[in-house]
């Protein structure tokens, strides 16, 4: 019963995507091309990565707005190390960025568990804190194409396979891996059950034998690791490194995850939903030129869809509660 309803919600999102695509295709036939799908995949890959991490945090009833700062911190620090020492190794880059991301995730989790303050406030604070530490103590220089490790650029330009000169970006691999790992953790492990449990009701979860502290530690570290990896993907794709990018773009990811049907209060959310949410935002974002609209339309579209999807999620919740004879209002 529950899964069926969620699928219906995802069905609505799919329907929006299809109707909009048809509309764009009528306006501009150049849209109907396998290249369009590949391009959107590439452009959205970094956002997908952090959206998956954020999804896990939000299912557990928390929120993380520091992940972009974590991503920047992880990649920026790693690249600095690589340039200083001359290491030019893709594996090192990703492992190091992921480790730094995980460490920053530990800080987030510890602060949230010990201070017992809302995660939004804590991660808003750590977002500035991490970024501040980075620009003050590590460096605030920008790096251009010439000095960045060559292996990273090669990864950014690489394709998994090609159809007539049009390649699918290699960045899709880490995203797929992260998606599969997350699916496995959420639905096939005890930690996954714990994440859903504390998202629904922390006290009940505690009485059922889950340790909320450990679960929380896990979700923020996991989100940090994915953010670190995402930072490295971003550098590989743009082939440039600035100390002030990424940070400030977190809310559009939150919007994507919420559009995907994730409950802000926790306990409910699907990976496929978050993926659809990201795709909707990027689909709107990357087709405005094709249909000849200015970029301010983007905000209008995203805002409208966000409000509608939040309303639909909350309405479905109400119907479900009524069916179960729970009256909250």
């Amino acid at each position: 019963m529950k899964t069926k309803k969620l699928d219906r919600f995802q069905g609505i999102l799919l329907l929006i995507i299809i109707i909009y695509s048809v509309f764009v295709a009528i306006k501009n036939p150049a849209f109907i091309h396998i290249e369009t799908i590949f391009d959107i995949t590439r452009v959205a890959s970094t956002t997908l990565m952090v959206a998956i991490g954020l999804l896990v945090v939000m299912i557990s009833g928390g929120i993380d707005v520091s992940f972009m700062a974590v991503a920047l911190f992880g990649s920026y620090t790693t690249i600095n190390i690589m340039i200083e020492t001359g290491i030019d190794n893709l594996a090192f880059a990703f492992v190091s960025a992921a480790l730094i991301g995980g460490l920053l995730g530990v800080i987030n989790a510890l602060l949230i568990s010990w201070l017992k303050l809302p995660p939004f406030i804590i991660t808003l604070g750590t977002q500035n804190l991490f970024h501040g530490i980075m620009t003050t103590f590590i460096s605030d220089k920008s790096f251009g194409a010439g000095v960045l490790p060559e292996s990273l650029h090669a990864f950014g330009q690489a394709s998994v396979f090609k159809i007539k000169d049009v390649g699918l970006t290699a960045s899709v691999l880490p995203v797929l891996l992260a998606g599969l790992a997350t699916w496995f953790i959420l639905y096939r492990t005890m930690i996954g059950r714990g994440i859903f449990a504390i998202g629904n009701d922390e006290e009940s979860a505690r009485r059922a034998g889950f340790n909320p502290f450990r679960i929380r530690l896990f979700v923020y570290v996991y989100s940090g690791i994915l953010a670190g990896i995402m930072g490295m993907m971003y550098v590989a794709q743009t082939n440039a490194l600035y100390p002030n990018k990424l940070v400030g773009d977190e809310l559009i990811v939150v919007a994507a995850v919420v559009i995907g049907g994730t409950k802000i209060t926790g306990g409910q959310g699907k990976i496929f939903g978050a993926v659809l949410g990201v795709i909707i935002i990027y689909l709107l974002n990357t087709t405005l030129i094709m249909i000849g609209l200015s970029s301010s339309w983007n905000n209008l579209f995203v805002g409208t869809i966000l409000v509608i999807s939040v309303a639909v999620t909350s309405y479905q919740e109400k119907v479900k509660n009524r069916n179960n004879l729970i009256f909250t209002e």
Partner: protein
Amino acid sequence: MKKLVSVLLCLMLTAAMVTGCGSSDAGSGTGGKSTKETKETGEEKTADPEEYQVVMVVKQSDSWFDDMATGVEQLKKDTGLNVSVQVPETGDAASQISIMEDLIAQGVDAICVVPNDPEALVPTIEKARESGIVVVTHEAPGIAGDVDLDVEAFVNEEFGKLFGEKLATAMGGKGQYAGFVGGLTMETHMAWYKAAVAYIEENYPDMECVSKEPYEDGNSIDGAHDKTLEILKAYPDIKGFFDCSAQGGGICETLQEKNKTDDIKVVSLALPSMSATYLEDGSMAAGLAWRPADAGYATCYAAYLLASGQKVETGTDLKITGYEEVEVKDGVAYGNAPLEFSADNINDYNF
């Protein structure tokens, strides 16, 4: 357990304090001193540069403004002028306004600013001038009436024509093209864009601009990248791009991905450290710039001249290459310092 918490908390607090106050520390320390001196000596303040505190507020932290900071450092070394640079966290008017408010409260002698959105800064600029602070802008001739002086590296229309000329030469004078600016509110970017398009319309009738308005790359390389992807699909016959913000690398990166570097020409505002690779591998036909270090030098020096009661008029020497003989018109001091990059000369510059 509890000990660990308190130790961690202390660490975080210290870190926060260092990061939070680090930037204003240097400013307020010396600032306090110099205002005191001003009050004590009153009208008798001499023209000695060491007695004046000038602060430069740049747009954001990137290699362009890193280079500008080195120019400002050089000015400090050359003249002993008490000059420093403030870098906003984000590239918007709000963060520049809050920095300027702080500087007004500190009572510095002059503020130099490279506005992200000139019009939005006008009320704050007025407030600064009411409290006796000299305000000099760079890259904002449109609000020259509201400031003490605006310093430009060149007449914007002339520089914009260079974009048009370089692009037309690279494209062989025919085909569709598109132009980027950082944002539609960025005055200089818009002036160059308009001049470039007007120049091409006048001289190359076979060239066609695909859009009425320029595209915005949001001053970010991935912005330029993503928009280029889209433009390539919407206008498959396009033959050239020019970018008035220094993000042409994002366009070249896209063209490399799509194997179109030979068919499509790119001309961009460029910084050697960020664009050298693209000029060398041929994906960028030409780069245009002016030396940010020199512009920062000239702007701060002009601010010092005004703060110390001296004048900046046509013929005034701002002590740095390209600005030896500025031309002052309607409150704007124009230098003559455009810089053209090609694959051959890009390695002569290290900013």
